[in-house]
């Protein structure tokens, strides 16, 4: 029988709550067919559950552990991740406790050789990065899932196998009180890098593993340093390698460093060895203060993805679908985008509004994103963790050059995770009549400041949203009339009108500063259609009801035949690359 740890994990800053096992009705003979079962209550599984809940679809979420995960792990949330968390109604605790930041500095031989300011527009509510430890991320999302009343969260329940047929999936689950079977029409595998579901289905990653091991150490220390990313190349105490330092909430500091190639992870985590290195890091940054260790682990860098995130009625998301390098904060941030993309499509199919083919577009869009990230992340990783003598020599040449030259400094850019634009998605309707430089279908919905602490994205309801700009009552009336007549094919659909102060009213947001209009390069009468994951999928000037309805239908995949998700995702791997398997 599955017996997870039930003593609270130790932490200097987080009180772990141990969740009891609750005997489910299936163990007493109930025969239930659930709509969606999600395996893994990490950040990706939880956001998927919340995205489904927002669109009225309940889910069962099974988690092997009795408490949220240990350690800081995925500490940096990108702006896009914060927007996704906002869209599922869970953002406030993240804003209350997260540490926003937008800059980083890199050092080599005692010199600051590169300073990068990540773009931050006053129209964005969230900063480029927000530091929040992963157990806090999970706790906040668990709280939101419990508050939703739509997520049946089953702790201490390990998935050990599955069978699927034409109508659903049966999960084999193991608990402290024995095994049982759970039936669901569809399953989301969000069970992490060592996914049991992926292994049971015999699926293989494509891509590559990188050599080298990296230590993460979380310490409590009183350091008078700002919230930014610090990177030290080739420190005296760790020649040829590098060190990253990040500030976390709660007086905690995160230190990452690569191990010498001849050192094992076990040796690196020996308390005396670890303490000596942390002391050397603090000496290096000129702050040899007292400190306490909270948690430490070792990880490796990979750029691996499944070639297809759909296997029948099972859909993969997060680390179960791809393993991405930590450099550029790509792991969980990519997973949040998976969850946002998958949640609404699964909800529309489950509610009978969209065809099964819509689920193929999840794989099409997100595999393309993962391949783009693998390419970008691979560059960062080859610089931060050179995989061969040649790469190490070129990295050293670049570091030597940046001491005297400006032009190579962009090579030190860590290429932070950014949202993928679904420009070639079959769900997009080509834009018509808008400014050529305006946001295009496929892009995330741009935020815009409406007031001191009031932003456009915060006004978007769940479901499809027609975002229209009107400067006069006649234009507004015409747009409202067309939106009301549009056939949304049963999908949740609403309109948000961006208007000047004189047109304020229900369903309207007042763009008193004119910033939304400027950011969209909008004329009066311009409209954009946003999907439920807040990606644009159509744009027009004064669309009629038929055009709006057709665009919603297209975004729902109503015109797609099964298996016609738009062809092979961009960046398809060669057969040789597909032969590579890797596990973290």
């Amino acid at each position, binding site marked *: 029988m599955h017996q997870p740890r039930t003593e609270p994990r130790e932490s200097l800053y987080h009180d772990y709550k141990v969740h009891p096992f609750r005997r489910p009705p299936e163990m007493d003979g109930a025969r239930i067919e659930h709509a969606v079962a999600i395996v893994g209550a990490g950040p990706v599984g939880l956001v998927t559950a919340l995205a489904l809940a927002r669109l009225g679809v309940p889910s069962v979420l099974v988690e092997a552990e009795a408490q949220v995960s240990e350690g800081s792990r995925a500490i940096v949330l990108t702006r896009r991740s914060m927007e996704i968390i906002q869209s599922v109604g869970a953002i406030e605790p993240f804003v209350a406790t997260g540490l926003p930041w937008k800059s980083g500095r890199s050092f080599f031989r005692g010199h600051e050789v590169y300073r990068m300011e990540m773009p931050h527009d006053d129209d964005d509510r969230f900063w480029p990065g927000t530091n929040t430890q992963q157990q806090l991320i999970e706790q906040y999302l668990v709280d939101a899932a419990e508050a939703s009343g739509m997520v049946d969260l089953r702790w201490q329940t390990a998935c050990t196998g599955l069978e699927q047929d034409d109508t659903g999936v049966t999960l084999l689950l193991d608990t402290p009180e024995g095994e049982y079977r759970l039936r669901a029409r569809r399953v989301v595998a969000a069970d992490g890098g060592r996914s049991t579901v992926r292994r049971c289905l015999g699926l293989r990653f494509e891509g590559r593993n990188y050599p080298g091991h990296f230590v993460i150490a979380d310490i409590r220390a009183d350091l008078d340093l700002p919230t930014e990313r610090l990177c030290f190349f080739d420190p005296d105490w760790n020649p040829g390698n590098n060190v990253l330092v990040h500030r976390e909430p709660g007086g905690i500091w995160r230190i990452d460093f690569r191990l010498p190639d001849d050192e094992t992870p076990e040796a690196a985590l020996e308390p005396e060895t670890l303490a000596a290195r942390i002391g050397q890091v603090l000496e290096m940054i000129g702050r040899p203060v007292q400190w306490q260790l909270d948690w430490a682990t070792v990880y490796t860098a990979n750029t691996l993805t499944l070639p297809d995130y759909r296997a029948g009625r099972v859909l993969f998301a997060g680390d179960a679908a791809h393993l991405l390098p930590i450099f550029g904060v790509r792991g969980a941030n990519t997973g949040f985008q998976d969850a946002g993309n998958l949640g609404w499509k699964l909800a529309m199919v489950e509610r009978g509004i969209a065809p099964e083919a819509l689920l193929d577009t999840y794989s099409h869009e997100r595999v393309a994103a993962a391949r783009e990230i693998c390419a970008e992340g691979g560059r960062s990783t080859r610089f931060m963790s050179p995989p061969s003598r040649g790469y190490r*020599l*070129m990295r*050293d*040449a*670049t570091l*030597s*050059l940046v001491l005297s*030259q400006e*032009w*190579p400094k962009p090579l030190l850019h860590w290429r932070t995770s950014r949202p993928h634009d679904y420009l070639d998605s079959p769900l997009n309707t080509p834009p018509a009549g808008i400014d050529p430089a305006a946001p295009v279908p496929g892009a995330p919905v741009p935020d815009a400041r409406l007031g001191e602490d009031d932003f456009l994205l915060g006004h978007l309801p769940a479901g499809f949203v027609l975002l229209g700009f009107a400067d006069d009552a006649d234009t507004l009336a015409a747009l409202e009339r067309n939106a009301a007549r549009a056939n949304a094919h049963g999908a949740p659909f609403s309109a948000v009108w961006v208007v000047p102060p004189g047109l304020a009213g229900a369903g309207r947001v007042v763009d008193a500063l004119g910033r939304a209009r400027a950011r969209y390069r909008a004329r009066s009468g311009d409209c954009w259609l946003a999907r439920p994951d807040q990606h644009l999928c159509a744009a027009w000037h004064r669309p009629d009801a038929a055009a709006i309805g057709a665009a919603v239908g297209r975004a729902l995949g109503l015109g797609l035949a099964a298996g016609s998700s738009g062809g092979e995702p961009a960046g398809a791997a060669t057969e040789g690359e597909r032969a590579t398997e890797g596990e973290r």
Partner: protein
Amino acid sequence: MKGKTLDTAGVEDAYDRIAEAIDAAGEHSELFLAKLALTLAWRCGDPAVVEEAIRVALLDLDAETVRPAR
């Protein structure tokens, strides 16, 4: 290779300067050559020229793999 090239006298000057710089770099000559190659790649501004230079430089690196004369 296409584009602007040095004349023979210019190549001879470069030849001497690079040889002297390799000697001056001593044990760091490999790093020096990598820096030089990256700088010249940036200066040249033409990816095709860089690619062709890499291709040519990889030819005939040791006696056993020298291509037979035509």
